[in-house]
């Protein structure tokens, strides 16, 4: 909270400062920051302290750009083109031809910035920044010492993925497909068609989440986008709680019948097609459509998760690694139902009552994440 106010006060103080022309012996530091970002506040504190000291005092000119302000993106784009980097998070610090994404004293960014300033001031060779992170160790019963920072994002991935997986929207299609498959003479065809449905469902979800993540990273971690996602999450959470309260006995709403009936007829046509390739194409196309349409049913969990992921300023491979992890846990219940059915040749459905309880837990989680996104986004930046 103090950091939040500090950055606000600093920004306001810079607004009322008289604009001075840059002296020839000054080094310019460009700082792209965001309101509510704890690392930005930490860097501001570091810079405020540093600029009081020699040889930096009066010799470093800081140009600040709040990321959600009009015109900031254009300025940032000039730098990203020139220095060839992706603006994956804030703060972004640029001195000469060097840039840093993120800030942490424990990560050595402060040292690297100071060294770069020294180099610019004294025309000395640069030193590469280090990326070591200081662990936040917590003693937990049974588990022992756990690095809270390192495990927060994986834990969130498992919990949100599983909760999203219990969403019954796409499950009914799989259950009906299994009932059709179980009546087949060819076990190979049965396995192939079922697996095609599962794999396509996973791919569609992955494509959707990766596209959403890239969209968020592309537009930058803008306050309004975070607020919008937060409000969507809040709405989704309240809707899930409403569903939990209303649907006490589980069961399926009859008003959902129309669309599902159409899907079932298409599924039947696909499965019973004599030509295996056509059947396979039909199943893949249907899995694609069903999962895309039923994404709405997830009440925004994937969108909220990707927003949190984007805020953590990770390397690309980690972003996609987390997405794959999410998809795995999202598909886990489908995989279990499918493999049990295929090996025992009996259909075991997952009770809609479990879905109801997942609505409650998911709803509460969504509301918590929504409030954090809106009021305390720094708490969702685990790194």
């Amino acid at each position, binding site marked *: 909270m103090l950091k939040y106010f500090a950055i606000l006060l600093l920004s306001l103080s810079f607004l009322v400062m008289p604009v001075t022309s840059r002296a020839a012996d000054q080094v310019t530091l460009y700082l792209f920051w965001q309101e509510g970002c704890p690392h930005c506040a930490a860097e501001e504190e570091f810079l405020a302290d540093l600029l009081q000291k020699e040889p930096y005092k009066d010799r470093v000119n800081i140009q600040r750009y709040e990321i959600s302000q009009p015109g900031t993106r254009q300025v940032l784009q000039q730098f990203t083109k020139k220095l060839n980097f992706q603006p994956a998070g804030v703060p972004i610090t640029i001195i000469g031809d060097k840039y840093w994404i993120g800030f942490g004293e424990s990560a050595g960014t402060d040292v690297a910035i100071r060294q770069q300033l020294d180099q610019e001031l004294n025309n000395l060779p640069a030193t590469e920044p280090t990326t070591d992170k200081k662990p936040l160790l917590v003693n937990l019963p049974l588990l022992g010492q756990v690095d809270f920072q390192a495990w927060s994002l994986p834990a969130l991935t498992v919990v949100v993925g599983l909760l999203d997986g219990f969403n*019954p929207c796409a*499950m*009914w299609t799989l*259950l*009906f497909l299994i*009932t059709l498959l179980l009546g087949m003479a060819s076990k190979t065809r049965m396995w192939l068609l079922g697996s095609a449905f599962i794999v396509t469902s996973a791919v569609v979800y992955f494509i959707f989440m990766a596209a959403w993540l890239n969209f968020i990273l592309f537009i930058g971690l803008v306050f309004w986008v975070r607020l919008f996602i937060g409000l969507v999450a809040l709405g989704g959470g309240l809707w899930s709680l409403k569903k939990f309260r209303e*649907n*006490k*006995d*589980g*069961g*399926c*709403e*009859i008003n*959902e*019948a129309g669309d*599902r*009936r159409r*899907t*079932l007829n298409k599924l039947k046509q696909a499965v019973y097609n004599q030509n295996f390739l056509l059947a396979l194409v039909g199943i893949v196309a249907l899995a694609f459509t069903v999962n895309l349409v039923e994404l709405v049913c997830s009440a925004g969990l994937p969108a909220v998760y990707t927003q949190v992921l984007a805020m953590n300023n990770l390397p690309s491979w980690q972003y996609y690694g987390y997405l794959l992890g999410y998809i795995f846990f999202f598909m886990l219940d489908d995989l279990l139902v499918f493999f049990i059915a295929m090996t025992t040749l009996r*259909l075991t*459905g*997952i*009770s*809609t*009552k479990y879905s109801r309880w997942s609505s409650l837990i998911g709803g509460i989680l969504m509301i918590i994440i929504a409030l954090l996104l809106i009021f305390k986004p720094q708490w969702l930046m685990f790194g």
Partner: protein
Amino acid sequence: MMVLKFGAAWCSGCLVMKPIWAELEKELPWLVTEYYDYDESQVIADKYQVNEKLPTFIFLDKNDQEILRLQGEASKTELLKIITANKDK
């Protein structure tokens, strides 16, 4: 007593209830049940005003009068209790 069971292929709750009813029908051979697929039995679904939620189970007495109606999933114990209590009706 007779039980009308309304379900649909697109309803996972109906699929969950199928094996439970199969067990009950095996254990209670005197129990008369009739299954209606909601999509294929619109007339009878309308007659019994099944228009909110599936699965729906309607318990009828000997005069075809409705004793009780259950919507959504129910446990085997719960169903057994209702059936035993209304066996002679």
